[in-house]
Structures are given as C-alpha cells and as structure tokens.
C-alpha cells in the first residue's frame, strides 16, 4: 500500500499563497504581544508555515532539494532556534516587554499598516517570473519590515532578538517567493549562520544577566561620541 501525494504546480502556488497569508497574520500577532515567551512560539509557528510551503512546492515540483530544505527549515527555524531562545528566556527574571518605545496596541496597528503598504507597493510589481503566488512577495516584504519594527521599538534584549527572527523569516520567505530559494549550499550556509547568531545571542545574554542583572538594553548606553 502506498500513499501517493499528487500536487500540481498550481496547488503548490496556492499553498504558498495561503501560508504567506498565515505568516503575515502571525507576524501581526507577534507585534501585538507583550509576552516574549508567546512571541517566540509565534515565531516558531511562522517557520513551520514556511517549511510547509517549501515542502508543498518541493513535492509538486519533485525537487528533493526543496523537500530537504523544508526539513532543514523546520528543524532550525521551527524547532532549534525557538527552543534555544526559550532556554535563554527561562534564565531571565523579566519575561514581558514592560515599557517598549511603541506599545503593543500601537505596534499591532503599525504592523497591519505595514501589510497594507507592502501589498499596495509590491502587489502589482511584475518581479516574479516563475512563481504564481501573487501574495507571497508582499507578505515576505511585510515580514521583513515588521521584524525591523519590532527590533527597533523594544527595549528587552530578547524582544529585539524576536524582531530579528521575524526579519529572518521574512528574508527566507523573500528568497522562496522570488526564486523558490537559493542554491542549496547557500541555504545551508545561511541556516548555519543563523544558528550561530542564536548561540552568540545566548552567550551575551548570559553575560548581560551576570553583569547587569537583566536583559534590558536600557543599561547599554554608555558608549557615545
């Protein structure tokens, strides 16, 4: 007994379109939450959606490198990175973003505005040659910008890292929606770099906890001029 999955290229494009919409929705939720722990799970959910889209396209186009790529994405961005951030978070005394420069409600509104602006700015652009998923690229650009918004308007070190991870998810979606990803060896290298960034974040989070007693970047304003 064998289970055959038949997906046409059009199905795959629709799947990518739908998951892009999901990723954007989750991105808005991330912008609107104070709890860093919840934000980390939502970042993981984005990565899982992304890897599902990659797997779908890989199955439809019979591309083994995409299927492997989706597993790599799931294992790194979907599982390893969020678990590592959760681990660091558990050592921190404060796990909510108390006093951001832009509050959760304002961030939520800003994130929605970003989605509309991206859709209007890129919706009609004919950049995409091979992919029939018109919502993927605007969604990807919206995630890149949402990630920047979060990273720039938060005070807690790990909130900033959450912003960075949303930004990275956005970049991965840009890569996928433009060209169905990059050459495999480049994807692997980029994933390795991301994992290393998280390791170094962990190293410095521990040092900041030891030296400053918290992960608040308010303590980081000694160097001027």
């Amino acid at each position, binding site marked *: 007994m064998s289970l055959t999955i038949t997906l046409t290229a059009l199905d795959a494009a629709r799947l990518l379109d739908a998951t892009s919409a999901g990723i954007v929705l989750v991105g808005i939720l991330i912008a609107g939450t104070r709890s860093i722990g919840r934000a980390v799970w939502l970042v993981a959910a984005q990565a899982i959606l992304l890897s599902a889209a990659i797997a779908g396209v890989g199955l439809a186009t019979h591309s083994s490198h995409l299927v492997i790529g989706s597993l790599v994405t799931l294992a790194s961005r979907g599982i390893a990175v969020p678990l590592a951030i959760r681990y660091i978070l558990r050592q921190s005394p404060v796990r909510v973003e108390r006093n951001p420069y832009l509050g959760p409600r304002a961030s939520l509104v800003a994130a929605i505005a970003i989605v509309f602006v991206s859709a209007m700015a890129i919706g009609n652009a004919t950049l995409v040659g091979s992919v029939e998923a018109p919502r993927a690229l605007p969604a990807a650009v919206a995630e890149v910008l949402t990630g920047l918004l979060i*990273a720039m308007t938060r005070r807690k070190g790990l909130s900033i890292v959450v912003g960075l991870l949303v930004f990275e998810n956005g970049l991965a979606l840009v890569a996928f929606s433009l060209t169905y990803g990059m*050459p495999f060896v480049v994807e692997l290298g980029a994933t390795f770099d991301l994992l290393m960034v998280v390791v170094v974040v962990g190293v410095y989070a521990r040092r900041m906890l030891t030296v400053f007693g918290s992960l608040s970047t308010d303590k980081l304003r000694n160097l001027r001029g």
Partner: protein
Amino acid sequence: MNDPVVAILVLAPAVGGLAAWRMRGQTVELIAFAAYVAACSAGVGLILAAFQTGHVTAFGGIVSIDALGAYVLALTLIVAGLALWASPRYIRHELASDGLRPHDEGHYYALFLWFMATLITVPIVDNLGLLWVAIEATTVVSALLVGINRSPDAIEAAWKYLILGTIGVGFALLATLFAYASSVQVLGESSDALNWTRLMSIAPTLNPSLLRLSFVFALAGYGTKIGLVPFHTWLPDAHSQAPSPVSALLSGVSLVAALYALIRFHLVAVAGIGPGFSSTLLVAFGLLSMAVALPFMIRQEDVKRLLAYSSIEHMGLLAVGVGFGGPLALLGVALHMGLHAVTKATLFLSAGELVQQYGSRRLSAIRGTITAAPVAGVALGGGIVLLGGLPPSGIFVTEFAIVVGGVTQGFFPAAAATALLLALCFVALAVHGSRIVWGHPGPVLAASNFDIGLALRLAAPLLAVAVLGLWTPGPLISALESIKAILGATGA
C-alpha cells in the same frame, strides 16, 4: 589541482582554532603560529598564481581568485600576521592584569583563527551567496571577540555589533536574492547563477530594475559592515572595545572585506545598467561618511574611537574613489586600500600597547609619549599623522590620485569636497598625533620595557607606508594595474 592548496588555506586556521580552544600558554601560541604559517604559505602560492595567470579556480568554480580577490587575501594575511604577532604580548598583559580570565586565552586564539578563516573565505569565493555567508560568519565570530573581556562597555559594544550587523547583513542577503532572481530569469535555475563571473558575463541581459534594487540593498547591507554613514553606529563601539589585535583585524581587513563585497555588486550594476546609478550612490554615501566622521575625530577623547572614526572616513574615501572610477582614481583606490589596512592595523596595535601602559584610553592621558613610551608612542603619534596623508607618504599620494582622478572623471564638486574634507581630517589627526608625542607627559602605570619585536612590528609597516609614496616596487605596480583593470573593467 588547486583544491588542496585552497583547502589548507581555509582549513588550517579553522582546525587550528579547534585545537586552540582548550589550550593555554605557549602551547596555544604555538598552535596559532603554526596554523597561520600553514594558511599563509598556501595563500602566498595562490596569490602569486592569481597575479601571474590572472585567475585561479578550484573546487569546480566555487573558488575563483582574480587579482582583486588575491589582493584582499594578501591584505588579510598581512594584517592577521601583524595582529597575531602582537597577540601574545597583549594577551599576557591582560591575563596578568585580570582583564581576561585564564581560560579566555585559548578561546581568544581559537576565535582569532576562526575570524581569520572567515575573512580568508570572503575574497576567494565566486558565488555571491557564499560570499554573504562568509561575511555574516565574520560578524558572528568577531562579535565573540569584541566582548571577550566581559566588561559592561565591551558587552554593550558586542551586543550592538551582533544585532545591527546581523540586520544590516540581512539587507545584503536581499541584494543577493535580487541578483539571483535577475540571473535566474536569464539562465534558469542553474547552479552557477549566483557566480560573480557568470553574472558579469550576462550582465547586459539582466533585468535593470532588479539590478538597481540589488545594488541599493547591497549598499545598505554591506554598507553597514563597511561603516558607511548612516549605517555606522556600531563601528566606533566595536572597534574601540575589542582587544587591540582584534581591532587591528576589524579596522584593517574586515571593513575591506565588506567593501570588496560591495564592489562586486557595483561592478555587476555598472556592467548591467551603466556607471551612473551605483557610482553616484557610492560618491554620495562616501562623502557623507567623511563629513560625519570629521567632527567626531576633532572632538575625540578616546584614542581607539579616534582610530575607528578615521576608519569610517577612509572607507568613505574609498567608496568615493570607486564611485569616481577612471584609471587614476581606481589606481589610488587599489593602493589606498592596502596602505590604510596596514597603517590602521599598526596604529591599533600601538594604541593597545599605550592603553595598557597608561591604564587609560583617554587622549588627555596618553601624551608626551616621547619620554614615557617612545616606541609605541612615536609609532602611534607619527602613524596618525601619516594616516592623515602627510606628504609625500604613500597615503598622501593615493588620496591625491583619488581627488585628481575625480576631477578628470568630471566629478568636480565632489572631488573638491573630498579634497577639503581630507585636508580638515589631516589637520585634526596632525594635532592629535603631535599631542600624543610631544604633549605634557601624563602619569604612567607601567614603565615601558624595550622589546625588539614590538619595535619591529610597529616601525616596519609604517616605514613601508611612508616609503611607498616615493618609490613603488615594480611587481606591486603591475599587481595594482591588474586590480585597476578589474575595478574599471566595464566602467569609464
């Protein structure tokens, strides 16, 4: 045929780092030295071959070294050699004064070697995606080095560097993606679609709007790593807080590595859509960087921050020079890249020496070094004046060439602005430099003990920079000519 040599070049420091991690004392110094010598001998072979034959490839085209790549590789090896040579003295002092903990010694050399391995990878890969991976890896490894002493300021600097560097380089990934998208439209999903040599060969057929997007994001992304204003805010912190031999590597070669990446994108843009677009942006951001760095240099109180802001100024000048294009400015750019790397590395090494001796990094404390610490003091003070472009030293000649080159290329107002900014920077640096040497001596923590190695590694590079203005050896001239040919391959 070149595969094993390239493998030694990259793997020797990588494996040496693994071996060094848990070692201490002379053992770890020996491991680092051995790894460096192995990488260096492989590198010299490849560099000579690249200059003789014009092009060395290995691993089925993944590695491709042309004259420009070979030059950046040579600078990396030279500066890494100087910094590694200075490391034992610096690290022993830090260990003795409790600036570092005993097990940090092995970690320092391991990270140093890994940083070197990532820097070496940058100029030898042909694939723009792998180039991005290598540059991102330099950030990750060097961020660990910046904060190795665990002081609050160093942690702050390292954190900013890590976050801003990662976000910035993220934009460079977008640049790479747009370049890939443009090339996939022409080539299909071919494995060499991101190879720079391939992109150059099909550049005129690439989608112009994708190329423009690609260059803009490369400018913002690699511009962050180069320290171009307004993406520079992390640079003075990281370069001043890092251990001084690491500052030498950061300011001397990691900036050049990022500039190298940006130049590759610039050349694709020039070949695809003509020189107007990317050259104008380079000149504009280069001038902005020089103009913003100047007031911070004049009013600077911290010796290492002074050197860091000067790096922003010099990277700005190089961006301006690349933007000007034309044979004269490009020849100036090629030589200036090397002179700045060597000078700035030496200055950070002498500054590190003085900071340890005076127990302070304040320029108001490090004064009158002619009596208190003549070797490092004269190297720092004199070197700073050289760096400003003291005629007729090499740096004066290259700066002159870039300005005159700009005029001949028709960038008259920009060339005039460059000349004015260079003159003001010279005055600022000359004042700082003369105070360091001749000023009223401040209190010294530790008396200087004369060390022949120290004198040699500080004096020799600065003498070379001074002399190169008057006399340039023939092989160097022909090397610079072939670099200029790549930089101006399709421009002017």
